[in-house]
């Protein structure tokens, strides 16, 4: 039996409780009593995957259907993977400890580009052919992908049977319903896939043919007969009423985010031009204060967590933020629960609420100005002014804070040396502000940390046309920043720019990259997002072996009329809008947020109603 085999080795690995399931809140159904099974795979380790909210939602939702079964699967750490391979332990699910290859669906959630090799590794551990075309005509297992990376899933196109665009709450069940019909009929894989394309949001990459120009750009993307030419994403229209779990699986071992979490809103009104999430999840929708309160209460009661967080892109933009927060703070205080709040825009809070918020805010003070000068912040449409930063810092310093963390990006479109020096100058003004305040915390110096990331242009943003800075350009700017910092009270750190290059390639890549990903994985790449595992050389060799250049994808300026590899995928926001926004960025012009004024991004053509009443 698989269980005995697993248990035989569990005490030889780190944190074994990650591999045996049985946590409080896990749902274990009898395989013989369910009709369709779904192995929900997170392409990273348990500690990371278990923190992911989307997985919790879809896990509970699928299991809420009596005859459907959803089980969790994570990537094993290196020590356990070695044991699994040596002892023929296939990748298995945590609920029934059942081999993943026996499931009807094997679904991956694609949250970041650097997890692509983990998908191949997990399929391989499961004993499932990694290439879609090498899978048999048997109906199962159907290998599916969802999550934000699917918006340009082309580099993964050759590995998946199906990709699901947009929000999964409805479409996942529709797909399972359809599958169940075909299972009863005894259909083949192709028969099922042919039928599945009729569900909105379902993309079957193998039914599309991509041709290229001599210069390497895409010439055309054509669909097979009877298959839609364009795939539209799915959204939940009544977000307040959408299913939300009243219980989570509570892990034994510590994970990254070990707490109850309520999603308060989806989408974002802001339209920061670098931010993919801000466009992918449009339109903005929110839950009512009552729903948030009752969902939070149910979750805390059922999980026993003593920490609660609010999930969203920008909680401050909730229209009922004051009452919503006030009620939650009352509840959590009374029940000895820590409410962890994100950085909030506090301009329109009442005195009373501010006092309440101050009491629960324990986390450090963080800002993401993203750019060092107002000019560049206008280019990226990041609506944070220096006055706001200074005001909030002043209040915080007076309240006893003495450290601030600032996040910036480097390599933004139109960026000049002035913008880089501006980062250091902004930090310096915060240092000066600290020493100008008589009520500042005594006996402690101020600490300003600057964290910079290399800008990665993403599809479905106004910057999808932009080249990424080369490594040399970034290194020069990093040095310039270091040289501009004049005090030890300011600390500078940055992310590895090689990682950002790979991220940029995969984010805007085309189908030919499947070969590169495969080659990199074959040569030992996995867990690329973990610094200690990242093998840049192996990746570069893989590009060479496949005759492709990373710079072509990352560092090339794309014309407005270039056919993008994701041209056939529709996330409701129109390409015209992105072009308009790109042009405005070049003129340093900002765009108002959606609540102030609609900018006609194209969303309403699909939703057929105004985003705000």
């Amino acid at each position, binding site marked *: 039996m698989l269980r005995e085999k697993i248990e035989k080795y*569990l*005490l030889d690995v780190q*944190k*074994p*409780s990650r*591999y*045996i*399931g*049985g*946590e*409080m809140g*896990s749902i274990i159904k009898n395989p013989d009593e369910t009709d369709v099974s779904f192995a929900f795979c997170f392409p990273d380790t348990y500690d990371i995957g278990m923190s992911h909210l989307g997985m919790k939602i879809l896990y509970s939702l699928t299991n809420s259907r009596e005859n459907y079964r959803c089980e969790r699967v994570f990537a094993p750490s290196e020590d356990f993977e070695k044991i699994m391979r040596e002892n023929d332990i296939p990748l298995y699910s945590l609920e029934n400890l059942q081999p993943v290859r026996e499931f009807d669906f094997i679904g991956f959630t694609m949250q970041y580009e650097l997890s692509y090799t983990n998908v191949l590794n997990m399929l391989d551990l499961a004993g499932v052919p990694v290439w879609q075309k090498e899978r048999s005509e048997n109906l199962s297992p159907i290998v599916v992908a969802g999550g934000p990376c699917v918006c340009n899933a082309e580099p993964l196109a050759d590995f998946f049977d199906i990709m699901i665009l947009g929000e999964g709450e409805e479409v996942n069940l529709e797909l399972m319903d359809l599958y169940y019909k075909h299972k009863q009929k005894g259909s083949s894989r192709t028969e099922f896939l042919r039928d599945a394309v009729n569900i909105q949001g379902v993309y079957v990459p193998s039914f599309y043919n991509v041709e290229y120009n001599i210069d390497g750009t895409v010439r055309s993307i054509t669909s097979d007969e009877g298959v839609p030419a364009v795939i539209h994403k799915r959204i939940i229209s009544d977000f307040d009423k959408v299913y939300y779990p009243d219980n989570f699986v*509570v892990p*034994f*071992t*510590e994970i990254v985010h070990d707490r109850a979490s309520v999603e308060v809103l989806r989408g974002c009104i802001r339209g920061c031009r670098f931010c993919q999430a801000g466009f992918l999840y449009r339109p903005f929708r929110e839950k009512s204060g009552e729903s948030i309160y009752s969902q939070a209460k149910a979750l805390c*009661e*059922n*999980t*026993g*967590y*003593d920490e609660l967080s609010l999930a969203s892109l920008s909680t401050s933009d909730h229209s009922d933020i004051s009452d919503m927060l006030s009620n939650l703070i009352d509840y959590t205080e009374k029940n*000895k629960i820590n409410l962890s709040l994100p950085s909030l825009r506090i301009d329109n809070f009442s005195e009373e609420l501010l006092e309440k918020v101050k009491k629960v805010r324990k986390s450090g003070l963080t800002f993401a100005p993203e750019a060092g000068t107002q000019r560049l912040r206008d280019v990226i449409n990041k609506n944070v002014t220096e006055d706001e930063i200074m005001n909030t810092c002043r209040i915080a310093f007076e309240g006893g804070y003495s450290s601030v963390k600032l996040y910036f990006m480097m390599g933004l479109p139109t960026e000049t040396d002035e913008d880089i020096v501006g980062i250091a100058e902004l930090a310096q003004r915060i240092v000066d502000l600290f020493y100008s305040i008589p009520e500042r915390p005594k006996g402690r110096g101020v600490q300003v940390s600057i964290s910079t990331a290399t800008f990665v242009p993403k599809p479905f943003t106004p910057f999808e046309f932009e080249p990424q800075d080369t490594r040399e350009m970034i290194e020069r700017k990093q040095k310039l920043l270091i040289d501009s910092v004049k005090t030890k009270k300011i600390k500078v750190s940055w992310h590895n720019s090689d990682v950002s290059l790979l991220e940029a390639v995969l984010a805007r890549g085309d189908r030919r990259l499947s070969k590169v990903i495969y080659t990199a994985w074959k040569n030992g790449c996995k867990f690329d997002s973990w610094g200690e595992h990242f093998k840049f050389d192996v990746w570069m060799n893989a590009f060479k072996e496949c005759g492709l250049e990373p710079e072509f994808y990352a560092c090339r300026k794309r014309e407005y009329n270039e056919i993008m590899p994701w041209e056939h995928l529709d996330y409701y926001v129109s390409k015209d809008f992105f072009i308009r926004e790109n042009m405005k960025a070049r003129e340093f012009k900002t765009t108002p947020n959606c609540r102030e004024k609609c900018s006609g991004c194209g969303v309403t053509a699909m939703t057929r109603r105004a985003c705000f009443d």
Partner: protein
Amino acid sequence: MIKVRTVFEKKGRAKYISHLDLNRFIMRVFKRSGLPIWYTEGFNPHPYIVFAMALSLGFESDCEIMDFNLTEGVSFGKIKKILNDILPEGLKILYVTTPEHKIKDIGKAEYSVECITENPEENEIFLTELQKFLELPEINVEKKTKKGIKLVDIKPLTELTNIINKSDNIVLNMRLPAGTQNNFNPMLFIDAFSAVSSVRFETGKISRTGILCADGEVFK
């Protein structure tokens, strides 16, 4: 304030929960239970929950002790039901009682270790060698203590209470010093024997089967 002692089992999947994780996890169980648990006073109040002894990762047990205080009375039967309705597979409250002994009264613990020989025909040799091993004047092993590794003679400390030869395995039952100061893991003895034995064997199920006071009375 009402003092409560529970005896619980840790088996199956639950045996892979480390002691540290169990400590954190049990807070959530109590939070969820709604029981009127007593919080410590002071700067950082937290529910007062104490495990009498840590159990090594991978060991099973049906005699684990967990103490806590309630601010108001709840019947023992109800406490047991409430907790068992929440606890996951492998963790189960066996009974709830009022503490009779103090945790510092613990002096010994009993274990049962299953030894599986690679070749069952060698069981007899295993037993003969074990007898010989027990007749040695001293059995010195390295033991990790707070002050570093030190050499300890476990011969006078290890009581082998009974040995059962069940053809496909041999079960050793033993009694060892235990308590807040001095704890001995049965694997010290097993590893020492394994190092000199000519028979190759693996350990199977290892359980703690009893917690006793220094005078040998069952800890209650």
